[in-house]
C-alpha cells in the first residue's frame, strides 16, 4: 500500500457516506465526533475488483452496492458453504482476493501458508476491535474460551508465520466481520413448556422432532453441550477432546439417532429454516438469523437461552498470501470501510454482532441499538435491512443484551487436535 492511498480525507468520506444514508442525527454525531478519521480516500482503488469468497450468509448485495458507491471497488461474491471456504483456501488460493472465513478454521488455514497476516497499522480501527477477539473478554469479564476462541488465533508473530502468537503483535490473522452466540432454536407453540437446558435436545419427548447440524466440527460441540448438560461427563475442554471423549460423545449421539430422535440433520441455513417452519422439528441447533427468518413468516420460534451457555462462532476477513499491488490496497481499503460503521450497523440489524461497536452504533437508530444490543424492549417496530418487519414494538431480543449473550458463551467452534479421528467417527455416526 502506497502513501497516497493511506492518506486520509476523512471528512469527505464521512459526509458523502452519511448523506447517502440520510440519517441526519447519526450524521451529525459521526461527523462531529470525528471518530472515523481513518476513512480512506475514495479514488485510490477506483476500478479494483475484489473476488470475495465466503458463505452466502455474510454476502449482502447491499454491502457490495454501498462499497461500490463509497469506494468504487467492485465486490464480486463467490458464495460457497462453510466447509468449502476452508477447502478453497487450502486448495485454490488463487481463486479469491479476500476471504471471509471462520476463526476455527485458522488452525488448518495458517499452517497451509496460503494466507498472510494483516498489517494492523493499515487497519485504521484495529485498536477499536472488540476485546472479545483481542483479549477474550467482555466489559472486563473473561468469557468462556473452550474450543478455538478467537483470542487464541488472533495474532501472528510475523506476516508469513504459520503459527499463532499468544501475545498481541502487528500481524492479525483475520479482521472480524461477524460473530454470534448460538443456542437451540425451539417452537414454543408446539412444545408448550419452558426449555432451559441443552439436555432437552435428546429428551425422548421430542423423538423424531429434533435436529442438529451436519457440519462435524460444529455438530460435535453441540453434542458436547448436551452430554455435559445431561450430566454424563464433564469435558476439560469441549473444543479439544481426546479420542475417548470423542467416542463417548459419538456414542450418546449414535444411540439417540438409532432410537429415532432426529428428524434430519441440516447442513445449511435454508434447511434449518425449512425444518423449523414446516414443523418437521420443534427443537434443533440453530443460527440466530435463521430464527429471525422463521419468525418473519409469522411462525413462533425462540432462540432459547440455556443455562449451560452458548456455543459461539466468529468469522473474519483474511487475505491470500499472493495478493499484491492495487488489489491488495483495495482489499485493505474495503476492510477499513467495512469496519467504519455502515456495514457493521447493517449486520447488527440482522442479529449478528459487528467488530467495531462504536462505529456501528453511530450508524444505527438509538431504538435499534437498544433492541439489538442492549436487550431493551423495542420502542418501534424492528425492520430488517430490506424493510421486512422482524419484530413488533415491545418485543425483546431472545437472550437479551450483547453483554448477556456474549458473556454467557461456554465454548467456541473448534478444530481439535484429533480432528481427523473425529471426522472418521462422525462419518460412522452418519452411517449408523
Amino acid at each position, binding site marked *: 500500500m502506497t502513501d497516497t492511498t493511506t492518506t486520509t480525507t476523512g471528512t469527505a468520506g464521512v459526509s458523502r457516506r452519511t448523506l447517502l444514508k440520510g440519517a441526519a442525527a447519526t450524521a451529525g454525531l459521526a461527523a462531529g465526533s470525528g471518530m472515523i478519521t481513518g476513512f480512506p480516500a475514495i479514488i485510490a482503488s477506483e476500478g479494483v475488483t475484489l473476488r470475495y469468497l465466503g458463505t452466502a450468509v455474510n454476502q449482502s448485495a447491499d454491502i457490495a452496492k454501498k462499497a461500490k458507491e463509497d469506494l468504487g471497488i467492485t465486490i464480486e461474491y463467490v458464495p460457497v458453504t462453510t*466447509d*468449502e471456504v*476452508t*477447502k478453497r483456501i*487450502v*486448495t485454490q488460493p488463487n481463486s479469491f482476493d479476500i476471504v471471509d472465513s471462520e476463526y476455527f478454521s485458522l*488452525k*488448518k*488455514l495458517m*499452517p*497451509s501458508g496460503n494466507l498472510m497476516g494483516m498489517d494492523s497499522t493499515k487497519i485504521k480501527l484495529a485498536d477499536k476491535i472488540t476485546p472479545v477477539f483481542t483479549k477474550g473478554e467482555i466489559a472486563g469479564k473473561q468469557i468462556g474460551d473452550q474450543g478455538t476462541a478467537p483470542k487464541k488465533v488472533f495474532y501472528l508473530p510475523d506476516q508469513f508465520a504459520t503459527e499463532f502468537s499468544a501475545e498481541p503483535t502487528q500481524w492479525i490473522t483475520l479482521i472480524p466481520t461477524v460473530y454470534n452466540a448460538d443456542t437451540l432454536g425451539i417452537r414454543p407453540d408446539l412444545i408448550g413448556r419452558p426449555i432451559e437446558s441443552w439436555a432437552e435436545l435428546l429428551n425422548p419427548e421430542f423423538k*423424531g422432532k429434533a435436529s442438529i447440524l*451436519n457440519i*462435524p466440527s460444529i455438530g460435535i460441540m453441540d453434542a458436547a453441550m448436551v452430554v455435559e448438560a445431561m450430566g454424563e461427563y464433564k469435558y476439560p475442554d469441549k473444543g479439544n477432546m481426546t479420542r475417548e471423549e470423542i467416542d463417548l460423545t459419538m456414542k450418546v449421539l449414535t444411540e439417540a*439417532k438409532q432410537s429415532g430422535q*432426529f*428428524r*434430519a*440433520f*441440516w*447442513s445449511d441455513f435454508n434447511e434449518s429454516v*425449512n425444518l423449523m417452519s*414446516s*414443523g*418437521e422439528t420443534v427443537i434443533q441447533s440453530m443460527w440466530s438469523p435463521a430464527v429471525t427468518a422463521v419468525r418473519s413468516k409469522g411462525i413462533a420460534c425462540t432462540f432459547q437461552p440455556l443455562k449451560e451457555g452458548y456455543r459461539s462462532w466468529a468469522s473474519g476477513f483474511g487475505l491470500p498470501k499472493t495478493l499484491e499491488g492495487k488489489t491488495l490496497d483495495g482489499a485493505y481499503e474495503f476492510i477499513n470501510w467495512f469496519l467504519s460503521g455502515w456495514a457493521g450497523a447493517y449486520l447488527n440489524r440482522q442479529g449478528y454482532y459487528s467488530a467495531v461497536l462504536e462505529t456501528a452504533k453511530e450508524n444505527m437508530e438509538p431504538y435499534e441499538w437498544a433492541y439489538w444490543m442492549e436487550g431493551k424492549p423495542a420502542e418501534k417496530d424492528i425492520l430488517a435491512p430490506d424493510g421486512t418487519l422482524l419484530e413488533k414494538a415491545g418485543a425483546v431480543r431472545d437472550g437479551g443484551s450483547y453483554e448477556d449473550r456474549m458473556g454467557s458463551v461456554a465454548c467456541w467452534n473448534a*478444530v481439535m487436535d484429533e*480432528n*481427523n479421528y473425529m*471426522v*472418521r467417527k*462422525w*462419518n*460412522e455416526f*452418519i*452411517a*449408523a
Partner: protein
Amino acid sequence: MAAPALTTSKYAPYWQAAPIALIFAAFFLIPLAATVVVSFWEYTEYSIEPAFVSQNYLDVFDGCFADLPNLCVTFKTYLSTLKFCLIVWAITLVVGFTTSYFLAFHIKSLTVQMALFMVCTIPFWTSNVIRMISWIPLLGRNGLLNDFLLSTGLVTERQDWFLYSDFSVGLAFVHLFTPFMAVPIFNSMMRIDKALVEAAYDGGASTWQTLWNVIIPLCKPGIAIGSIFVITIVMGDYITIGVMGGQQIASIGKVIQVQMNYLQFPIAAANAVVLLILVLMIIFAMTKLVDIRKEL
C-alpha cells in the same frame, strides 16, 4: 462395427479420435492418476505430503475384517449404497422400459412420439437442486400428501416416513434418473425393425412371447447402457442422498465429500479408488453379459 472406411487414409481414425483422447488425458487420466498417487500419501489437517503408505486403505477398512460377521462402517455404507443402487436400477428399468415401449410401439405418429418424448425430458432442465427440494412440500409431516391421506381417513395420524427416509431418497433417485434409463432403451426400440415384430405376431407369438423373445433381446444394448448410467450415478451420489435423506443416510459419495471438506484428500482418494474398483467390477460383469460395442 465393420463399417467401411469413411476415408481411405488409415490414419484417419487417429486424428478423428485425437480430440476425445486428448480431453480425457488432460481432464480425466491425469487428475485420476493424481488421485491414485495421493491415496498413498500422508496427510495432516492442512497439507498432504508425498509418501508411500497404505495407512489410508487400512483406515478405510478399519476393523472390517476383525469384526466379521458384524459389518463395519465401510461395509455398511457400501451395502446401503448398493441397496439403493439395486432398488433404483430395478424401478428405473421397469418404468423406463414400459414408458419407452409405449412410446415406441403404441404411438404410431413419429411427431406425437417425439412430442411425448420431449414432455418426458423437459423437467430435466430445471436444476436438480430445485427439483429435489420441491418434494419437501409434498412429502413433509405437514405436506400435501399427509394432508390428503388424513382428510381421506386413510391414515389417522401424520406419517413421518415419507420424507428424510429411504423412501424419499429412492423416490428422488427414480424421479431424477429414470430418463438416463429410458432414453437409451427408447433409442434401441426405435431401431428395431417393425417387420420383425410383425413377423413374430404373424408366426403366432403372443404379445408376451414377442416381448420376451424379440423386443427385449434387441433392447439389451439400450438396457445395458441405461443401467451403466443409473448405477454409476447412484453409486457416486451424495447430493440427493444428503438432501432427501435429511443428511442421516450414509453413502460412499457422502463419506468422500465429508473427508474432502476436511481436507483429508488421501483417505478420500483411497475411498474413491475402492469405489472405482467396485464400480468397474460391476460394469465389467455387465459387459460380459452384453458386449455393448458390438450390439449397439
